[in-house]
């Protein structure tokens, strides 16, 4: 088992009367791909925002590389954030900037590279993500898939240790979804990052997973592989698996029982 790179200890997060995370303890292993699955409004995106320090928990600890980010000053937190890359649901490219400027932004803001070197690195990255010839376009002029590719290129510019994906394939057609997954595979192989993926795209996204975390009613349940989910002793989890993962996975349970 790999060491944990991110750990939640007894994390509680509520919005008004609604308790989104209820005394959650979970760890995300270094170098692995963890898929966080669960229904809408169960707190998947909140979990990502807690990891990034964009939200603070009501109680509990969140450790990144063993350091509690909930008690950090902004300057220290920013140092930790430099280790992260994030692909947002809508890619979150800055509207007023071109694709080139968006992808160059982390280098311009966080490094001391000269503009020529930045341009060279950005062009290299854009070529890798099949965005050559689109450098001067604005995000509004891009298709959904191109936006995601540009968002991924920007997230990887500083070669992060941890990549967070918030619904990376939502709203994309099946072919572009497969392109994004292929890019995920190649980029993870190249950069060797730990990844946490929040997705509705079940069971397809489970093909990427080394570990699955299910979120239900504020609780998180960890499974060492997607195949273990239908084998759960809890009927609610089994019904979730049957509903979302279909017969392939439910038949494994039958095989197991035989």
């Amino acid at each position, binding site marked *: 088992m790999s060491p944990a790179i991110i750990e939640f200890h007894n994390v509680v997060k509520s919005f008004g009367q609604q308790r989104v995370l209820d005394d959650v303890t979970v760890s995300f292993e270094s170098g692995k791909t963890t898929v966080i699955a669960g229904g809408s409004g169960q707190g998947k995106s909140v979990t990502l*925002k807690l990891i*990034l320090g*964009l939200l603070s928990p009501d109680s509990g600890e969140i450790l990144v590389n063993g350091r509690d980010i909930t008690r950090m000053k902004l300057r220290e937190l*920013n*140092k930790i*954030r*430099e280790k*992260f890359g*994030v692909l*947002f*649901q*809508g890619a*979150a*490219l*800055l*509207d007023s900037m071109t694709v080139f400027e968006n992808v160059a*932004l*982390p280098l311009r*803001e*966080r490094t001391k590279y000269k503009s020529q070197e930045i341009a060279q690195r950005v062009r290299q990255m854009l070529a890798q993500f099949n965005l050559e010839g689109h450098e001067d376009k604005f995000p509004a002029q891009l298709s959904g898939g191109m936006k995601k590719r540009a968002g991924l290129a*920007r997230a990887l510019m*500083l070669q992060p240790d941890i990549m967070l994906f918030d619904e990376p394939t939502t709203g994309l057609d099946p072919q572009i979804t497969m392109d994004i997954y292929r890019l995920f595979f190649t980029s993870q192989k190249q950069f060797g990052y730990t990844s946490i993926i929040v997705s509705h795209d079940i069971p397809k996204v489970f093909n990427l997973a080394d570990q699955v975390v299910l979120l239900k009613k504020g609780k998180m349940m960890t499974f060492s592989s997607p195949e273990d989910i239908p084998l759960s002793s809890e009927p609610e989890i089994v019904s979730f698996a049957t509903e979302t993962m279909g017969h392939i996975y439910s038949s494994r349970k039958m095989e197991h029982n035989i």
Partner: protein
Amino acid sequence: MISLITKLGDSFLYMVRDLGRMGLFLLSALMGIFSRPFRFRETVRQIQIIGANSFGVIFFISIFTGMVLGLQGYYTLRKFGSEGMLGSAVALSLIRELGPVLTALMVTGRAGSAMCAEIGIMRNSEQIDALECMAVNPFRYLITPKFLATIISLPILTQFFNVIGIAGGYVAGVILLGVNPGAFYNGIEQSVVTEDINLGIVKSFVFALLVVWICTGRGYFVHILRNAGFGAEGVSRATTQAVVLSSIAVLIWDYLITAIML
């Protein structure tokens, strides 16, 4: 009865929290001035958007405000046989009150609403979250250039408003209604003192800060504004709120500064 008290208490607590949030927002935006790297080009771009692009609208508002002042002032002063005081009346009204107030209201409507909508959309589409995730300070990057640009532009636009407004008063009073031009100029020279100009400048700086603070702040917190809703509707309500609050704040502070400095 208990429910009414609960609602009042809840609203009061929300107001206190909102004021606290806005106070910290103002501090962070001002601290952004001293953070490096300084975004010089973006600040200049904002000066163009907020300041330079407002000259046209300010020109029309100011010339007609001056002409109306000239017209109204002429008929009022004629009753007392004091048409010669027209220059003084127009200049003092513009420099002390109307110049700073109307310029601030015009900048609120033209640039303040745009700033609020822009930042609100960036918040809703997670662009501000993306900046934070890249360890880029969103205040230094987004908000501070707007603060600086407004604080630089509004006093300049106010002085432009005053000059064009006085010219409008001259057109209406001297050219159209036949007031003696010498008396018009003399009235201005005799009555306008440095304190009047200073009062106008102080007002324009304070109004600039209020307008940019409220407009960018409402956009920045669009996701947690009570009753604002989500998405496009949330941004539209936040923008309405920003314009209304800025306008009210400008008028209240106009009274306060006048009361303190006069």
